[in-house]
């Protein structure tokens, strides 16, 4: 195993190539520009396709075309650019096309800021575009996890014929960490793409890529087919990490960079004798409801920590189904809390009970 010190965005780009990306279409936006910059050189060097598109709208539609023609395609952007891509994403989901989308999240709403944020949770997990669909979405917390997920993402996308998103906040995109780029990643066994409109088919062998079903009966059938797929994904693809959960009287729920800060908070609290643990979602869709099933009977309260003003908290509340009180701590705009801030927040909750 050899580890290299890399910048997050560059590691993401390298991971895409190692994951088998055939084509990348993207548009510059802070804080992810190192991704297209790296790929503009290295995709061509590897005999693959790179194109800087004229907009995010064009990018996601180029992804649609290439995915429909059977290629393994990727794009990357940041929150406001992802907002522009929502139309394309719903078309990709509706037409059951695989692709990988990297979202290096920044503050919003609107133009917002260029500092890290986690305020895209709703945009990512609650559609963003029209219709009943979901995007398989990961929220890694460090570069190794990011690289491993991206390398496996192309297979996941192909396996389920669905868009896959990897949402890292701007901090992860910009920071430098040691990464093992050649660690073995999850591989799936997949059928050939006998649905791809790759040319060479006429008559009843023709392939048609579409999300249009004007007949209501057909559209309902299509939606039910998608629904069954999403149920399978919910059953099989939830990923999460449990930290000190077994004896926890207080649970923190956090993902990405916020989870890393909370790890330090937990250390501080544990040293003071407070039994606190953490559930760290790694997939944010499907949300890891399984992690909330058998919680300790000593559990008193849950504290959700986000770099937003509260989006994932809704899924936590849904998962606990009213069995535990759920509180919130958040910072936004790119303001990052210190571990002590979360320690104080939890102590306030504990005091509030006594």
């Amino acid at each position, binding site marked *: 195993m050899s580890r290299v010190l890399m910048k997050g965005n560059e590691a993401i780009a390298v991971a895409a190539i190692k994951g088998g990306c055939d084509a990348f279409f993207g548009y510059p936006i802070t804080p992810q520009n190192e991704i297209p910059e790296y790929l503009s050189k290295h995709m061509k060097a590897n005999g693959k396709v790179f194109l800087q598109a004229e907009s995010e709208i064009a990018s996601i539609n180029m992804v649609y075309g290439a995915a429909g023609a059977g290629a393994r395609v990727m794009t990357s952007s940041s929150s406001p650019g992802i907002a522009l891509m929502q139309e394309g994403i719903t078309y990709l989901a509706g037409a059951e096309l695989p692709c990988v989308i990297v979202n290096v999240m920044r503050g919003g709403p609107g133009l917002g800021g260029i500092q890290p944020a986690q305020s895209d949770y709703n945009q990512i997990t609650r559609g963003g575009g029209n219709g009943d669909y979901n995007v398989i979405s990961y929220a890694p917390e460090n570069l190794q996890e990011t690289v491993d997920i991206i390398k496996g993402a192309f297979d996941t996308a192909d396996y389920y014929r669905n868009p896959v998103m990897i949402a890292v906040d701007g901090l992860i995109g910009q920071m430098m960490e040691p990464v093992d780029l050649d660690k073995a990643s999850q591989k799936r066994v997949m059928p050939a793409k006998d649905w791809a409109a790759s040319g*060479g088919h006429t008559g009843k062998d023709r392939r048609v890529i579409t999300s249009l079903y004007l007949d209501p009966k057909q559209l309902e059938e299509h939606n039910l087919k998608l629904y069954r797929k999403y149920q399978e994904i919910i059953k099989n693809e939830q990923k999460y990490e449990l930290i000190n959960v077994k004896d926890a009287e207080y649970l923190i729920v956090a993902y990405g960079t916020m989870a890393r800060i909370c790890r330090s908070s937990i250390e501080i609290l544990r040293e003071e004798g407070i039994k606190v643990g953490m559930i760290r979602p790694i997939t944010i869709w499907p949300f890891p409801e399984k992690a909330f099933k058998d919680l300790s009977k000593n559990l008193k309260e849950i504290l959700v920590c986000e770099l937003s003003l509260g989006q994932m908290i809704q899924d936590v509340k849904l998962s606990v189904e009213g069995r535990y009180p759920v509180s919130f701590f958040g910072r936004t705009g790119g303001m990052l809390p210190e571990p002590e801030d979360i320690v104080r927040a939890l102590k306030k909750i504990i005091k509030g009970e006594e």
Partner: protein
Amino acid sequence: MEKVVYQKSVGLTNNDLSYCPGCTHGIIHKLVAEVLEELNLVDQAIGIASVGCSVMSYFFFNCDMQQAAHGRGCAVATGIKRVRPNNIVFSYQGDGDLASMGLNETIHAANRGENITVIFVNNGIFGMTGGQMAPTTLLGQKTTTTKEGRKKEEHGFPIKVAEIISQVEGAAYVERVSVHNPNFLRKAKKSLKKAFEYQQQNKGFTFIEFLSTCPVNWGMTPIQAMEFVSKEMMTYYPVKVFKDVGDENA
């Protein structure tokens, strides 16, 4: 012994076309199909259906097809051609799709010289949605959103798309044609064939704008609509070659 002078092209499926009686979409579909057939390209073509009356053109062209979102045909075509450079890729778009929603994607695909062929069906109105103003609606023309007729002060001028595209460096062959009678139709087919041949030769972006009719939303019979093209549309939208990299005189 008999010889076939004209018959349905194998470039079309057997499905009934969904267009209104006399709509030139049917004629233009046939030209695309016939040209692909004559060039032996039907079984390697990948077409893009746009959003408008021709939204279901993927039922009519006998090749692999992809449905694109409104206006995005040239971006989708770019994605396909970049990963399948040996396939013939064409995008079939109306005036709402290409000139309104998709003008940016179209200009940029032309600018990059994408080796694709764009069939632009200009009937100066939004057909599918019931007859609203299009970017190419003529001044004075009445539509459901310009009930008193298009006014330049309020609605701007009709957009001359072929002229715009011909200014873009990467465009290799840009022509406006008409299909309002057999004479113009024959010329249009020749132009379309050249466009696809240029794609085969990797000459760059080829663009054919077809002046077309919308009898229902213009409130005319199909024959009257053909005359409207000839007398009114051709006055504002000249039928000619605007750019041809293969011909120094153009």
